[in-house]
């Protein structure tokens, strides 16, 4: 018999959230075949079965968060007898003693504590329950000695109708991490946003010539600006009041996936050629969306860029990706009539850049200088 334990995806992972079981008890599994999907605070991964055999027992169900290393399932050979087994995390779900006949017929009786015991309910409660076709055993009575009364039925009905109207989902591990990090960012940092409108015409022209995305060009420029204005390439530890400036420029790119926002990282972007940035960006976006992203791909970012331009947002106020001290938001590039230096009107490809920064460590003038520098590079680009 083989114990399947909650895997550890990264050094910091303490527990995993079981998103989905691909197999059910009694199913055959082959070695290497996907067994379940687990999300950690950072990523969601499929877990492949390490052995071939029969999934004898699923100890923890979907939507449960389990400590790393806890046995979550048992795989054995066909007909193998399931011995007494003690789960380590939650003893209440512990003792499983199954004979092989039972495994094949999946006759696992759940203890029905109410069976054979009449539920106390007022006549009125019984009448309403009958009219609404309600099972009284599902309702908790608040009357004397647990008697179910009208108010209990009405409470249940109002809750049940809400249940029907809404699709209640527990937050997945990833979504929970996003929630926690954003709350922390919002409450800890003092975030301000500077916005400027920039002429992207030249950058667009070059990226078209070189067959790279505008975002790649932007990352290329950003990496150089961060090298010059190092105070933006930093982390701020609120608890320790430490301001950590990084030499390596690792740019995180916010990617919209069907499981939520992910931020893969282009490492040492200042040392990469435009083409390489473009290739890496494409690869990371693909991996993020397919769920194939690894722990390494999403860690150690020093600055984040987020682009909503393709979704018709002109400008917005991004929120910091803590513990980073700044984030750059990119709006839609739109053709607009512009007054040029010679007072002539021309049609240019314009977009807003929003720089959100932690005002505790970065002054408004610094942010203005940062945007100005970026604007200069974008308007007269040199991507060599």
């Amino acid at each position: 018999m083989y114990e399947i334990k909650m895997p550890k995806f990264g050094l910091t992972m303490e527990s995993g959230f079981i998103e989905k079981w691909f197999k059910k008890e009694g199913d055959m599994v082959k070695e290497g075949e996907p067994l379940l999907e687990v999300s950690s605070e950072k990523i969601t991964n499929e877990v492949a079965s390490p052995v071939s055999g029969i999934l004898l027992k699923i100890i923890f169900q979907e939507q449960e968060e389990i400590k790393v290393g806890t046995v979550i399932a048992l795989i054995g050979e066909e007909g193998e007898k399931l011995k007494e087994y003690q789960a380590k995390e939650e003893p209440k779900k512990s003792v499983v003693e199954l004979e092989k006949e039972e495994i094949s017929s999946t006759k696992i009786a759940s203890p029905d504590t109410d069976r054979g015991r009449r539920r106390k309910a007022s006549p009125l409660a019984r009448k309403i329950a009958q009219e609404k076709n309600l099972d009284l055993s599902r309702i908790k009575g608040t009357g004397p000695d647990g008697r179910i009364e009208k108010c209990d039925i009405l409470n249940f009905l109002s809750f049940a109708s809400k249940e029907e109207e809404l699709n209640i989902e527990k937050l997945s591990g990833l979504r929970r991490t996003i929630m926690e990090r954003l709350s922390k960012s919002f409450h800890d940092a003092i975030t301000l946003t500077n916005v400027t409108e920039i002429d992207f015409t030249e950058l667009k022209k070059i990226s078209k010539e070189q067959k790279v995305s505008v975002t790649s060009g932007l990352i290329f420029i950003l990496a150089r600006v961060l090298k010059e204005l190092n105070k933006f390439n930093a982390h701020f530890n609120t608890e320790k009041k430490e301001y950590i400036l990084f030499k390596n420029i690792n740019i995180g790119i916010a990617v919209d996936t069907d499981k939520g926002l992910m931020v893969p990282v282009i490492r040492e972007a200042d040392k990469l050629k435009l083409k390489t940035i473009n290739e890496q960006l494409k690869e990371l976006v693909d991996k993020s969306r397919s769920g194939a992203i690894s722990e390494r791909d999403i860690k150690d970012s020093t600055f984040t860029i987020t682009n909503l331009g393709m979704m018709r947002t002109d400008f917005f106020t991004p929120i910091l990706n803590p513990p980073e001290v700044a984030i750059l938001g990119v709006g839609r590039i739109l053709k607009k009539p512009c007054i040029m230096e010679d007072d002539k009107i021309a049609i240019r490809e314009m977009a807003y850049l929003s720089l959100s920064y932690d005002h505790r460590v970065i002054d408004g003038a610094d942010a203005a200088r940062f945007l100005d520098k970026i604007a200069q590079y974008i308007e007269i680009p040199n991507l060599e």
Partner: protein
Amino acid sequence: MREITFAEALGEAILEEMEKDPAIFTYGEDIARQGGIFGAYKSLLGKFPDRIFDTPISEEVIYGSALGAALVGMRPIVEFHFADFLFTGIQSITLQIEKIRYMTGGQGKLRLLLRGPDGISNSAAAQHSECIETIFMHVPGIKVVIPSTPYDVKGLIKKALQEDDPVICFEHKMLYRMRGPVPEEDYTIPLGIAEVKREGNDVTVVTISRMVHESLKAAEELKKEGMSAEIIDLRTLVPWDRKTVIESVKKTNHLIVAHETWKRAGWGAEITSVVQEEAFDYLDAPIIRVGAKNVPMPFAANLQDFVTPNYKDVITAVKQILR
């Protein structure tokens, strides 16, 4: 509208009906010379000196002669002095008066009104404090009336004096001096129609007589705590107004019966039983009865208070039923 006492309203009712119906005459102990023990007859003697008279202490004779007079077409009104003393003449009432109509195939109409004071009063002790209306509700053949206000006593007594069946009316001693609006024009109140004295949504309190006022006081207190009690004064126990009670229970889903008589086998038991038969599916909690403790009434004032139900008992019951 003018306000008169319960006793005055009662006297008026009898006077007005005697003026209309020459068959009515009234007698009992101390009613002519004294004007009745609570003064209800004071206005009558001068008007009808030959139709109102005192009797010796002779209950069996009083009720027996009333039975005979009614059988020959008169309409006697007998005052029973104190309800407790009905026991001394109970044979005539429960063996004869109540059964004549049935035993004569409906030919022997027995137009007779028995009336007098009942209820707990200031240290009147065990033989002057009883509420025995339940006994007459139990035996078929006599209508039972229990008014709680001057308006009701006049309307109900006048109606009783127009009935073709024997009627017994209990008037609470503590209510005779109560003042209330009573119209000067002629009116009657039909027997068997309850009055919703106060509307409410959370609990129905069915009551009569003095306990109507205690229940209303309780409802006022409960309102401060957000509980809404509906107070129903039955006014007559035979017949009693099932429709009003059951409709109210269907609305509030909770029933309390509050009476001054002993809790054990008091008339409240009949009401609760009928409600559970006819409106079981509307009850959200067991019905609660409020009544006197099951002992003869003590003489000592503090013990009398201990035994007598009051508004606080109603409040306790409501809180228990609504929790």
